[in-house]
């Protein structure tokens, strides 16, 4: 038997085309592939059927096609404690959480990795668009070659220790190639739509969902100079830089959310996409996780992403003694959003990332960004 046949790879399968092709590619390479479906959320549809059923059925169909065993694992209570609770807490604090980042950190690349190791796995594979590469004895994470689909932004909080155990077979492919492979092999999931949005909310209305868990406190919408422009439904429903759903008409440029005042329950609005209050030139990042052996004794330059679908921006990183970092932007940035991730890169190499705590302009904290 080849080495691959003696190498067990547990594949996290969601019932989507990406993880289906991940399993297919590993199977083609002769690995001992085991498919595992994660059930992280307990919900039922109008007929009382668990909403995860359809995805699990797709996992089963694909695994039958690939002739690999498949199982399910239930992380509902862990997911609730580690991801959903964080999600609610952040919204309650007026911030905009990133549950995908937290899910990767706490569930997929911690609890699920442990589960895979408990099954005697040598590697854990997922369908993320990212790459791992070994260089000089260090395993590094690189962006996926499909820059448009690259998911390293969401992976910035995973521990560098685990990279040697991770496989991202899709990292070398672009999305169209993945779809083509799925079609070529007639995989049951080949034409399935990509899931969008936050997994536990699904197709539902975000406001309705959140209001089931957090009491909404309507309040005033004001300009930064205090002019009342209307009512907001609850600060948690709005994100910095958002245009939709404000319901302010009138002449001039469209209105945008430019800030929040949690103490007074006021939503700040301003006119124009490029409203001055949305711009900052630095941020403080906390919960900083390094994926490389980064020299933190002095400032360094690199590029950074402040949100998922965004070009990199040039920055200088100033490490603080407490592990946090100050990040100064080469050019002012619009709508830096506390709670979201800032992720650092050197070309394709993902250096690490952190959570945006606060934004600054001319060294003054922009408190209105919450």
């Amino acid at each position, binding site marked *: 038997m080849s080495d691959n046949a003696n190498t067990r790879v547990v594949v996290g399968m969601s019932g989507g085309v990406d993880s289906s092709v991940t399993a297919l590619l590993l199977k083609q390479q002769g690995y001992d592939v*085991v498919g*595992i*479906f994660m*059930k992280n959320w307990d919900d039922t549809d109008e007929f009382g*059927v*668990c909403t*995860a*059923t359809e*995805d*699990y059925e797709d*996992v*089963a169909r694909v695994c039958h096609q690939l002739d690999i*065993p*498949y*199982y*399910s*694992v*239930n992380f509902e209570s862990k997911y609730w404690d580690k991801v959903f609770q964080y999600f609610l807490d952040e919204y309650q604090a007026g911030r905009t959480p990133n549950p995908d980042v937290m899910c990767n950190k706490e569930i997929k690349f911690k609890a699920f990795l*442990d*589960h895979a*190791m*408990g*099954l*005697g796995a040598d590697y854990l594979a997922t369908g993320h668009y990212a790459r791992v590469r070994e260089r000089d004895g260090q395993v590094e994470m690189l962006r996926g070659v499909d820059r448009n689909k690259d998911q390293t932004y969401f992976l910035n909080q995973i521990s560098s220790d685990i990279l040697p155990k991770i496989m991202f077979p899709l990292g070398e492919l672009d999305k169209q190639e993945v779809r083509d492979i799925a079609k070529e092999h007639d995989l049951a999931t080949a034409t399935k739509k990509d899931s969008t949005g936050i997994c536990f909310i699904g197709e539902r209305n975000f406001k309705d969902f959140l209001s089931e868990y957090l009491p909404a406190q309507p309040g005033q919408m004001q300009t930064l100079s205090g002019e009342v422009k209307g009512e907001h439904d609850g600060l948690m429903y709005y994100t910095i830089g958002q245009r939709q759903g404000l319901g302010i008409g009138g002449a001039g440029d469209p209105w945008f959310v430019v800030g929040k005042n949690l103490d007074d329950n006021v939503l700040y609005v301003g006119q124009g996409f490029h409203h001055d209050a949305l711009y900052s030139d630095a941020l403080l990042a906390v919960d900083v996780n390094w994926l490389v052996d980064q020299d933190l004794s002095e400032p360094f330059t690199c590029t950074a992403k402040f949100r998922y679908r965004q070009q990199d921006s040039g920055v200088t990183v100033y490490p603080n003694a407490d592990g946090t970092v100050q990040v100064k932007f080469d050019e002012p940035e619009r709508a830096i959003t506390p709670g979201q991730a800032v992720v650092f890169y050197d070309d394709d190499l993902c250096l690490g990332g952190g959570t945006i705590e606060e934004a600054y302009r001319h060294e003054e904290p922009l408190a209105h960004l919450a």
Partner: protein
Amino acid sequence: MEPIYLDHAATTPIHSDVQAKMTDVMQHHFGNPSSIHRYGRDGRKLLDESRTTAAKALNAPFSSIIFTSGGTEANNLAIFGTAHAYRAQGNHIITTTIEHHAVLHPCEQLEAAGFEVTYLPVDQSGQVRVQDVQAALRDDTILVTIMAVNNETGVVQPIQEISDVLTDHQAVFHTDAVQMFGVMPIDVTELGVDLLTASSHKIYGPKGVGLLYKRDDIHLEQQLLGGEQERKWRPGTENTLAIAGFNQAIQTLQANREKRHEHYQALQDRLILELEKQGIEFSVNGDLTQRVPNIINLSFPKTEVEMFLTNLDLAGIAVSSGSACTAGSIDPSHVLKAMYGEKDARLTNSIRFSFGIDNTEDDMQIVAEKIKPIIERLEKVVT
């Protein structure tokens, strides 16, 4: 290594005698038993023979056997059929918290339709107490449905004693005897039941066929409407192929029941011995004496059931635990919950082993040897 199948309480392979019988039926006997020509008579003969076999096996009259599509349908027919037929006499039903879902869910449905249902608890032995049945009994109780052997623990329920309590009461007494049929002799008169469910695929017969024994004077509201088959209790052209297979499975069972019983006991004893030999920590869930020999439910501290089951399957050992939800994830067993409460660790670290005629005692040694390293690995991962 050949995989080892230890999930016979879920389903059994089809016995070679049954395969031969069914092959013959497929090749030569296709007639519709309702037809009046020779082909029809040929089909009818299969049905008559099968009914005779089943009736004899239960010590019941020929006319009291209703063939159904399986245990679930028989339970539904018994429960809905009785509840609706006797509604004028009362509104109250007694069952237990450890029944199969094919009993629990019909009872819940009846509750939603306005019936009152008492779900009797069990203690850590996994056995229903006769005095609890007595205490729950009311003048308006119309149905008592209590399983004969629990499918998850193998614990035998005191059916005969319960029937004594019901002697002078109007309530119809039904028992789901699906897990009893393959291991213990059944005499419906001795057991004192009015309705009894049995299934073919748990006794080395084909899937898709079962039966309901119905004492001749018990009335049921029809649950399916159609032709005159099964004296209208179960309309629809009879599944003669499966029924003939069921017939053969019962005959083979009757001829080998004691031998099988001994074999199962030997397997269970050997498994426990081998687990002890390996120094594996475990305990038996439920009563140690009041049980069938082919099902044993073991708790392995410091393990986690999903990871344990997956590991066992990857190692070639097929066992089970509780029931899987539609997304494949294991729901904590309602039976163990009833025995130990919501929070007990045994709910998440217990495995059911159920033995079959093709298992060997040496298999039990292999199983214990395979379990050992898995437990060692799990102890490192499970927190």
